[in-house]
Each structure stands twice: as structure tokens, then as C-alpha cells.
């Protein structure tokens, strides 16, 4: 078709993965239209001004696994991606001020013993080796076991070979710990409680698990994959996470993609089990034979497609994806830089963690099982304005904290509990940073209910589905739907609910685009 209005692919949702897909498809010469419900691009990878003059990354605030190939392919640096800080240290906060500083494989602290240092160095190296094996398949579609496809067989072989070439003992160890809990593995390897607490937090962040839940070693490895992508610690993008999305959007636009914000797709139109287009909430219909959904799989199939358009077994598996949002976000506008006991001004821009020991983290999770928020929550804190003055008025600062556990299905309901939980969090911060309360100009707590209404993710789950072995690789998002294609001809998924999963990584978007290009050549 030579029609100038002709669109090859409609992408529903301009999350960072949707943007990456759009850029790659445009690069291949397809005419791409991206439709985003909200007024800005990025989905959950956005920066918002939550109080006049104070801006902060709305959801994830550290970047630690954006794939280098994507940065290079899409020339993101030319499109405005820059970092206010990179390779940040982690500081595990201790209430007595005897904090531990973690930089790559090196730990430092008043109570840290030489054996702690040695043990952590070994543990860190092992996790990095395992993460590298895990990352083998990340940049490709997940291999399926049953379809007898050469590419999938090679992909599986590569995974197997990378595991095996670590040596027999190492491979056995990976297989032993791959599905078990981080609590036991930390106890096997390390003694320092504070260090183990910080690592427990890392393993459970963004999920509905405690350190003693199965699969949490996978949670840690998944985060450590970023180290194989060249990150030696988290980075803070200049202008917040929104600027990462803006850079990808700018790249996509320059490659020819059209982005329409404020355009909510109500449903995907289907005729004879094939995509026919999309319908917007204002009734506008856009015809198109290929649609990519950046929405999570559950809302894609239940709302945009509708279960009646699918078969029972498939609908059932989609409806049963485990995704209970459990993570909240606290934003504080501060009159001045707060002082944390035992930290100097240079340290305060690091990644600060409140998770004193693994049992503390597990106890925090206990509440979430019964629809309550944690009495003693865990926190990952960033004060990005230390590195990036554009985020707050001169001399003032913003504090951003990822907080657990805050279950989506809170018994008393989030509209009731929001202020109560926020006050509890501020009290907790105050105990580590005396005087902080007096500095607070404004504050905001985003509960999973807020994430759901703002970003449309079912139950406000950050990763569009738990990252656990039963929802991983060829089982992500669920068995029978793992390679970005769906039973609806021309409908693809590119959100974090697909392989490899969540975090601002961009690989789902890239893998999905590649799949569409491969499949697209033979369909239509």
C-alpha cells in the first residue's frame, strides 16, 4: 500500500519497551504509530513534578540494566540520555551509625571483619558468574522446548553450555540454589547481618516475596544481570527516569515513528482471530493489521482483547498470572539536604538501604501476606538532587524511596491508609536521619493502587508479573504464550510481562520488534 495514512504497526502504550519496539521497527522501515493514554511518554519510566519545583522518577529511580546494545543502536546519547551519577555505592544503614558501604565486590564498615570482606568478594563473584549465565537468553526470544525450532534449540544449547562451562561444581551449585530462597543462601555464605539484610532487600524488591520465599535467589541474580551489561552499581539518569524514555522517544521519532499521547486505546479490534485495528476511548478507529501491546498481559487479554475472544485454557492461564503489587514509592520535597547519622555529605547521594537483617525483611513481608502494610518496612532510598540540581529548586532536595511491603489488596483500602503508612515511613526515616521531618515541604506516597490507576498495570505490579521460575524464560508470561506472539494473528506483546522481564532494560521491546519482523515476513 502506498497510502500515506497507512500504518504498519500500532503500539498500545508508550512505556519504555513500547518506545524501544517503535524505534527498532521504524528503523526497519515500518510505519509505526504509538498510542499513549497519559500525557507523557515512558509509562512507569517517567519523571513527575510531584510538588512545585520538585521532580522525581515516578517508579524505579535507579537505572542498572539498560541494555548497551539498545543505547548504541538507538543512539540514545545523541538523543539526550546522560547520567548525573553512575556506579553508585550502596550503603546499608545501621541504626547505630555503623553502616556498611558496598562498592562492587568490596565492602567496608566499622564492624566488617576481614572474613566478611573475603566472603563477600567470593559471593559477589559467584553471583556475577551465575547472572551471566542467566543473561544468555535475555537478548533473544525465550527458547521453547516443544516447537522443534532450530533457533530455539541453539538458544537452549547456549544456555546449557554457558552453565556447563563454569565447571561441573559451579553448574551444580547454580542448579542447587537457582530455585531456593536467598535467606538460606546468604546464611551459607555470609555472616554479617547488616550485609545480608541489604542483599535480602535486593532479592525481593518489586516482588511479593520475603527472603525466605522460594525463588528469591533468582530475584538477586536478575538484578545482578545489569553487571554483565556494564553497570557497576546503579546509575541516576539526568532529569530522572523520564529522560531515558524521552531519549528513546526522540530516537523513535527521528526514525519515523509517530507518537500520540493522550490517546487511550479502549480495545483491540479483532476479526476472524486476526487483528483489525484499535479503538480509542473517543470512538476513533485506527485500522491496522499488526498491534503490539505494551500493557501487561493480564490487562491486554482481559480488557483490550477480552477473554471471550480467546480460548478457555489460554484465558485461564492469563488470569492466573501471579502479580500482586507490593511496592510503594515515597517522595519527599525537602528544604535542605537531610543528615543521616554516620554519613557525610559525599555519601548521601549513594543508594541507601534500610534492611537491618534478613529476619527484619522477612517479618516485614509477613504483614503483606495478610493484606497489611509492614509495621517495620524496608526501603531503598535515593536523593537524586545531590547529583542533579535540575530536580529541585536551588539548595533544596528531593528524596525518593522504594518501599516494601505495601500490598495492593490492603485490607483497609489505600485511600484510607495512604497517610497512615506515609507517616510511618517518615518516622522510620527520621530515626535514621534525625531532623528530616522538619525539612519536609511536601510529600507523596504512591501505593500499588496509585500505580495501577496511573500506569494501568494490573494490581500495580512493577514487573507486570512476578519474576519467579514458574513465570520465567519460556514460562513468561505463562506457558503457551512466551514468544511475544499471541493466538490473535498480528497481536504481539512487548511489556515487562514477557521475557526477560521487568526493570528499565529495553530488551522485551527489542526482542518483540525482532519477532514481529521475523513473523511479519511470513504473515499477512
Amino acid at each position, binding site marked *: 500500500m502506498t497510502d500515506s495514512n497507512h500504518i504498519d504497526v500500532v503500539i498500545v502504550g508508550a512505556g519504555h519497551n513500547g518506545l524501544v519496539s517503535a524505534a527498532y521497527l521504524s528503523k526497519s522501515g515500518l510505519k509505526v504509530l504509538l498510542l499513549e493514554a497519559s500525557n507523557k511518554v515512558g509509562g512507569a519510566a517517567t519523571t513527575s513534578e510531584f510538588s512545585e519545583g520538585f521532580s522525581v522518577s515516578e517508579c524505579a529511580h535507579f537505572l542498572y540494566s539498560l541494555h548497551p546494545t539498545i543505547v548504541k543502536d538507538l543512539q540514545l546519547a545523541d538523543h539526550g540520555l546522560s547520567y548525573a551519577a553512575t556506579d553508585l555505592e550502596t550503603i546499608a544503614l545501621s541504626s547505630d551509625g555503623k553502616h556498611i558501604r558496598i562498592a562492587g565486590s568490596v565492602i567496608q564498615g566499622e564492624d566488617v571483619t576481614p572474613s566478611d570482606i573475603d566472603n563477600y568478594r567470593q559471593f559477589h563473584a559467584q553471583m556475577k558468574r551465575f547472572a551471566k549465565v542467566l543473561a544468555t537468553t535475555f537478548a533473544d526470544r525465550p527458547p521453547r522446548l516443544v516447537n522443534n525450532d532450530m533457533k530455539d534449540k541453539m538458544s537452549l544449547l547456549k544456555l546449557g553450555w554457558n552453565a556447563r562451562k563454569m565447571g561441573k561444581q559451579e553448574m551444580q551449585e547454580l542448579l542447587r540454589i537457582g530455585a531456593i530462597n536467598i535467606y538460606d543462601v546468604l546464611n551459607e555464605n555470609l555472616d554479617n547481618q547488616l550485609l545480608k539484610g541489604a542483599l535480602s532487600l535486593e532479592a525481593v524488591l518489586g516482588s511479593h516475596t520475603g527472603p525466605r520465599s522460594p525463588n528469591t535467589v533468582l530475584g538477586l541474580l536478575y538484578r545482578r544481570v545489569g553487571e554483565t551489561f556494564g553497570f557497576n552499581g546503579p546509575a541516576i539518569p539526568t532529569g530522572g527516569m523520564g529522560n531515558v524514555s524521552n531519549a528513546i522517544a526522540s530516537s523513535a521519532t527521528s526514525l519515523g515513528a509517530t507518537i500520540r499521547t493522550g490517546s487511550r486505546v479502549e480495545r483491540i479490534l479483532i476479526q476472524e*482471530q486476526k487483528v483489525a485495528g484499535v479503538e480509542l476511548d473517543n470512538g476513533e478507529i485506527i485500522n491496522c493489521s499488526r498491534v503490539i501491546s505494551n500493557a501487561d498481559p493480564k490487562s491486554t487479554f*482481559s480488557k483490550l482483547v*477480552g*477473554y*471471550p*475472544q*480467546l*480460548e*478457555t*485454557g*489460554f*484465558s*485461564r492461564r492469563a*488470569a492466573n498470572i501471579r502479580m500482586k503489587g507490593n511496592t510503594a514509592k515515597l517522595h519527599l520535597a525537602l528544604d535542605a539536604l537531610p543528615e543521616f547519622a554516620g554519613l557525610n555529605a559525599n555519601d548521601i547521594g549513594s543508594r541507601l538501604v534500610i534492611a537491618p537483617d534478613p529476619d527484619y525483611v522477612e517479618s516485614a513481608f509477613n504483614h503483606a501476606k495478610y493484606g497489611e502494610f509492614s509495621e517495620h518496612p524496608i526501603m531503598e532510598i535515593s536523593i537524586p538532587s545531590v547529583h542533579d540540581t535540575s530536580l529541585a529548586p536551588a539548595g533544596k532536595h528531593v528524596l525518593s524511596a522504594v518501599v516494601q511491603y505495601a500490598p495492593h489488596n490492603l485490607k483497609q483500602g489505600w485511600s484510607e491508609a495512604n497517610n497512615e503508612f506515609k507517616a510511618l515511613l517518615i518516622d522510620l526515616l527520621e530515626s535514621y536521619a534525625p531532623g528530616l521531618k522538619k525539612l519536609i515541604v511536601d510529600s507523596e506516597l504512591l501505593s500499588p493502587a496509585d500505580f495501577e490507576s496511573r500506569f494501568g498495570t494490573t494490581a500495580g505490579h512493577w514487573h507486570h508479573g512476578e519474576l519467579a521460575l514458574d513465570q520465567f524464560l519460556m514460562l513468561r508470561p505463562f506457558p*503457551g504464550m512466551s514468544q511475544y506472539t499471541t*493466538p490473535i494473528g498480528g497481536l504481539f506483546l512487548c511489556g515487562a510481562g514477557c521475557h526477560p522481564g521487568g526493570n528499565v532494560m529495553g530488551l522485551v521491546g527489542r526482542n518483540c520488534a525482532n519477532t514481529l519482523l521475523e513473523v511479519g515476513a511470513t504473515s499477512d
Partner: protein
Amino acid sequence: MTDSEIPPLLLQTPFHSRVADACEINLWEDWKGYTTPAAYSNVELEYFAMRNSASIFDITPMTKYRITGTDGHAYLDRLVTRNLKKLDVGRVMYTAWCNDEGKVIDDGTIFHINDDTFILCSQERHLDWLEWSALGFDVKIEDVTEQIAALSFQGPTSCAILKKMDLEGVENLKPFDLHHYPFQQTELMVSRTGFTADLGYELWISPEHAENLWDALMKAGEDYNIKPVGSEALQIARVEAGFIQAGVEFVPAEQEVRVERSRSPYELGLGWLVHLKKSNFNGQQALKEEKLNGSRFRFTRLDVQGNKPAENSFIFNQQKKVVGMVTSAAWVPTAKRNIAFASLEMPWGKPGDELWAEIYYLRELKWARVLEKCTVLEEPIFDPERRHATPALDY
């Protein structure tokens, strides 16, 4: 707890008092958790009542689901393989339903009672599957097995007996019609359906009126040789009629443990129930592929030489290789044939194929074996005019 307080392990149907009285030989079996008679007196006499006069068979244990709600019609259409949109109020449709892999979960009948109400009647229980299928539909699904007492009333004189019971116009019911009639102080639902390929009806009533219905039928049928019949007689009639049964001809798909034990509709001779071109339904994609790439098995009705039922027989081809096995077999008296249903590996079972059944039989504690030649049947062997005639013929 005293003995009298312990409820019987098997349930009794609402007809039980009458059934127990009539069951001369006291031969009972467990059918879906209900105690039901295998035979009342003599299997042959019961069979011939079914074919030559009138028979009553208590089908209360059949699983019955009531489906209500504004999406009921669309819901059922997505559930089953046949185009259900054509099913008007007052009609019944026989159909199969499949899982996503296109394997048969069960076959059964759907009754369109009124605009938003349907009853799905089947051999097996599927509440979990029906509930999962309801995702995204505004429907309510209830198991009403215990709330509806039902009799299968089959045979040439069945219509005459119903007329005698003052069911006005019952002779005008076409096959697969259903209608409600006033009966004593209640309502009796009558459908012209059955499991015998003959003139016959199924009668549906609330349980408290069950015994009255039985009595009224027996009284009206006095001069028409009406007989209650057990499962053994029905089994012969079913094989003669050519009807398959879940759990006998195939493993219901969602109960399958070993792979390849379930069957697609095409593999059960039910291809005519699959409307591939209708809108989305369970199994559609898999069945489209099967239609394109071919099936694994063929369901075959065989005419076996001799008079020994080929029960559990292996079927051999000309090269003496096993190509399948028999699922049901019986000597059928009206057609006077020795019939076997067999599931054969493709490509076997085409008309004209030379096939042999290996039949084992016991003679005074001694096993013997014969190989009997089988002919693939193309046409039904029992399909009398009275089965289709409307108004129903009088006998």
C-alpha cells in the same frame, strides 16, 4: 451416630421408591454417585420393550448445568464446537466441547429454555471448566443435577402414551424440539431427544413430582407394554444406534493423564459437529490445524462376523499388525448384527479395509480365541422412519 443416621454412600434418585419396587432382580450399580439398576428383570425383554413398545430409563444422574445471564448464548457458543447461534428457544442441540488442544472434554445436549436460560446436559461433570470458560462473560452457572428429575422415555409407543396423559400436541414435537406441558399441579418439560435412535422423549420435572410422573406413565402405558429398563439394555440400544459415550470411547480431555489418550471430534466421528468457520470457540485453532494436517485416529463402526461380541478386542490389518482396539461391542438384536466400535490408527478404517478382530471368549472356564473378519460400516444400521417422522407415528 447410629446406623440409621448414616446416609447411604450412594444417592437415590427421586424415582427411587418406584425404581426399587420395579427392580425384580435387585441388580444395582453406581452411576455418577447414584444407585441405579443395571437391569430390572431380563435384559432381552427390557431391550425389546425399548425397540417394540415403550421404555423408561431414569437419567436423573446425568449432569445438568443451568446457564443464565445476558451472555449465556455467546458463552455457550464459545464453549462448544457447533454453531450455537442457530439454537432457538424451544430447541435442543447435540454437540461436543473441547479444550484448547481441540480434544473432546465431553459431548452432550444443550436445551434453550428461554431467552437467557440454557441447560447443558452431559455424562461427565465439568463445573471447573465451565467456570473457567466464564471469564469475561456475564453468566451464572449452577449445577442443577439434583434439582431436576429426568426420565428417558423411548420406543414406538411412547408418543401414544404421552397423548393418553393429555399432553396436547406432543405428537407435533419435531426431533430436538422441547416444550412445557401442564402436568398435575406442575409443569413437565418434554424434549424429543434420546440415546436410542428411535422415537422417544426425555421428560424433565422437579423432584417432588417425580413419583407422580412415574405412576402416571406406568398407568397410561399399561396397555402399551411399558417397561422400566436398566443400563445393560440401554447399552445394547446405544451400540445399535451408533452413539459414543464419554469414558468409554474416549478419555475426557481434562481427565487425561497419559498423553494421547484423549480424542478430537474428528477422531470420534464427530467431525460433523465442528463448525470451523464460526466465531472463536475452544479448540478452534487446534482443530483447524488438525483439519489441515490430518488426525491421528479414526473412529470406526465395524460389522464383525460371527455372534461373539468383540469386547476389548485388538483390531489387526491384513499384515497382522495391530492397528487399533475396540471400545464398545454388542450383538444388536433388531439389526441382527455383531457390532463393534473401534478406534483405529490412521489411515486404517476406510470402507473396504480388510480388518480382523481378535476375540477372546470363555467356555466353561476355558479361554478360546477367534479371529473374525470385520467390515467397516458406512451407513447407520438402525435408523427407522419413526425416529424422524413428525407428527410422531402412532403405534
